[in-house]
């Protein structure tokens, strides 16, 4: 079995893996990082989204060997203590229902905000379209992304101007 070495949430790891194994299963079953979820295995639902070099990728459809030497961030490493603006906004708006899709939603949203500090509804729709929420929490996810943008602008510890209402722009 090939061995592959990369960084996960800032820590270097070295694992022996089957040549064809997707990153998802290495994270979940070999590194015991259960936050990243399996939903479809074919790149359709986004539940398995992680960041590789800051870019959101579907770990179910990414070969583990292809991330050799790279930086991988999972939901467990999105922040040290659950205070990334998207996490704070998600809690403030009580976004989840079953919660299963939310790690993938949060990772996709965090990558969007890193690239676009003040996304419009259309920007958010385009960025989030690949993430299925079977419980259909879509409106709250969108509201929480707007709220996270406010929180991020206000700085790490200060609150923004209150949760936005469900809206179209």
């Amino acid at each position, binding site marked *: 079995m090939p061995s592959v070495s990369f960084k996960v949430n800032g820590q270097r790891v070295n694992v022996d893996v089957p040549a064809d194994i997707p990153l998802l299963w290495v994270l979940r079953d070999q590194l015991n990082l259960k936050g990243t979820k399996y939903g479809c295995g074919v790149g359709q639902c986004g539940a398995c989204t992680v960041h590789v070099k800051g870019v959101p990728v579907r770990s179910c459809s990414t070969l583990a060997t292809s991330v050799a030497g790279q930086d991988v961030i999972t939901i467990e490493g999105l922040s040290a203590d659950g205070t990334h603006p998207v996490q704070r906004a998600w*809690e403030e708006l009580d976004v989840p229902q079953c919660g299963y899709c939310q790690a993938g939603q949060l990772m996709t949203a965090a990558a969007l905000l890193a690239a676009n500090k003040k996304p419009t509804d259309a920007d958010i729709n385009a960025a989030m379209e690949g993430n299925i929420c079977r419980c259909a929490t879509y409106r709250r996810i969108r509201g929480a992304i707007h709220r996270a943008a406010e929180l991020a602008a206000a700085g790490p510890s200060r609150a923004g101007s209150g949760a936005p209402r469900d809206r179209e722009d």
Partner: protein
Amino acid sequence: MTTIAPVGRRAFLKVATLAGGGLLVAVYGPRLGVAARGDRPAADPLADTQLNAFIRFHDDGTVTILSKNPEIGQGVKTALPLIIAEELDVPWAKVTIEQAPLDPAVFGPQFAGGSTATPLNWDLLRRTGAAARAMLVGAAAKQWNVAAATCTTADAVVTHAPSGRTATYASLLAVAATITPPALDQVPLKDPAAYRLVGKPHKDVDIHKIVTGQPLYGIDVVVPGMHHAVYEKCPVFGGKLVSANVDEVRKLPGVTHAFVVKGGPALDGLLDGVAIVADSWWHAQSARGKLKVQWDGGATAATSTAGMDAKARELARAPLDKVTRNEGDVAAALAAAPMVVEAQYSYPFIVHAPLEPQNTTAEWKDGKLEIWSPTQMPQPGRDLVAKTLGIPPADITIHVTRSGGGFGRRLKNDYMVEAAQIAKTAGVPVKLLWTREDDFAHDHYRQAGWHFFRGAVDAQGQVVAWQDRMVYDEIGEADFPSRFVPNLRLEVSTPFHGVPTGALRAPGSNGQAFVVQSFVDELAFAARRDPLQFRLDMLRRQVTPPGPRDRFSAERMAKVLEVVRDRSGWGKTLPKGRGMGVAFHFSHRGYFAEVVEAGVGARGGLVIHQVWVVGDIGRQVINPINAEHQAIGGALEGISHALAQELTIDKGRAVEANFDEYALLRMPNAPPVDVFFHLTDNSPTGLGEPALPPVIPALCNAIFAATGKRIRKLPIGNQLSA
């Protein structure tokens, strides 16, 4: 239908001091949800009772409340303990919630289904909290030698205002344990106007764990020495295994066991298959690619959606074999009517596809089984495992994990019994995980249905005849318009098809509402009447008094219809190409009327601008955030059904295999949903389901209003561009 009995006379409390301090309050009561078995006095009250809830007080002032039912995203893990905490008068911040293990002897019925958690538990849990509070007040009164009635409680403190004395609950535990528990049916309950927790928004108790990716779900379970398993079944539903190359598969990398499992005939039990167990799930799944199995599909191999469609049309030409309602004389009324409207409707099989694929972890050790499972029905799961494996239920422990969605799929425990059998045969702990493709291929699908209508309105624009021939429909009945049309006949036929089916969020109703409320719209159009006023007029013209099986109140429905009319601005002028549609439906004890505003562009592009949901679920909304989540989620799920969901059957198997071939609603198509609860003086009822059904016909009726095109077949798919 289940009778929900109020908390009975024989319910009582049991109190025990906990080792290391603290007080445990347990409520015993007659089983809820089962009609009383006469008034036979029980010699030993425990022999006929069950323990329904637990409160654990701790010396440090914190309280642990056990949540008895499975959490599948419907919010019970927050809502049920909230009811206890309200009457108990403890601050929510001091409460820790624990998921109760499966132990129906202790907790009473534990399941998630039928929007029953609120109606089955509302009364009992209030009384549980109130009784515990009464004992703490009693303890303080005894210590202070004052009348209990002169004491008040707030924030886990008892106060005697006249003397200015206070005592924390924690300081009263030892004395409280000596107080005789009050009879549950006599304990005074709070005036709802004084509620501090119930009716106020409370976030999901697990939210921090969810947003930080902590393990919570069945798929996240790890036990020492755990292996990983996959299970291959016949693609034709219920097919039998003839032979398999398990000896070759066993030699593949990482594979530790590969064996044939012989199952039975029940589609929701253990079916024939091949188990592959490996050191990792990826190895097990990879080995599956080399598996060669010969199957015998049996009679079901001839089933197809197209064949069912042809069969339904053929059958509906003549009266069907079973008549479920017959009022007046439909044939005569249709013959005499100046105009008869005829229409054929159908809706397809659809999948549940909760986002967490089916999985269960099982360990067989010393003749006992331990199971960790995301299930909506742990007790029937245990019974199924016990029966199939020949183990006494007492030797099976079930841990219920949070579920990544349920929607009715996890009412069936097929994946649980598979994991149990594989663990027992392999002799190692295993986590069985289905792929999404397994889930599509082996769901218990929402039943497809075909309806053949004939209806008539008279010169005054009133409905005088309604005939519905239903083929393959899973209920074969209708709460409405039964009783509201003088000549009405419902017939049903359910030929064999062999496809496994099961309850999916608002079962029966999710198809019935579409056909009934669409055909009502057709009659309103034929009568040249406003479709909303036409419905109000129908509801106000009850022609047959309600019989014992009629549960539907026309007054409550008419009211929500009026409220949604006003909230949506029904009748307002809309731009060209836009329309509003309305529908209502009664299900799971809830009354819902909904309006959709939608537009269709020149090339058939559909835009849903807004949905209005108005529901009557009784006098109390327990957790408003969650209630809104459930209502919005239900409405958006209905839209998802309507837009594109369709599972085709061909040669006795599912055709679509994953989300690339089967479209679920995604963010850009999720419209804003306005939710309003119209409170009425009725017992609070559940919300998982009843908001879903009306949105489908409301959308289709909006499309008709916008374009003149009537959607008679779901999903809408590309019908608008044709």
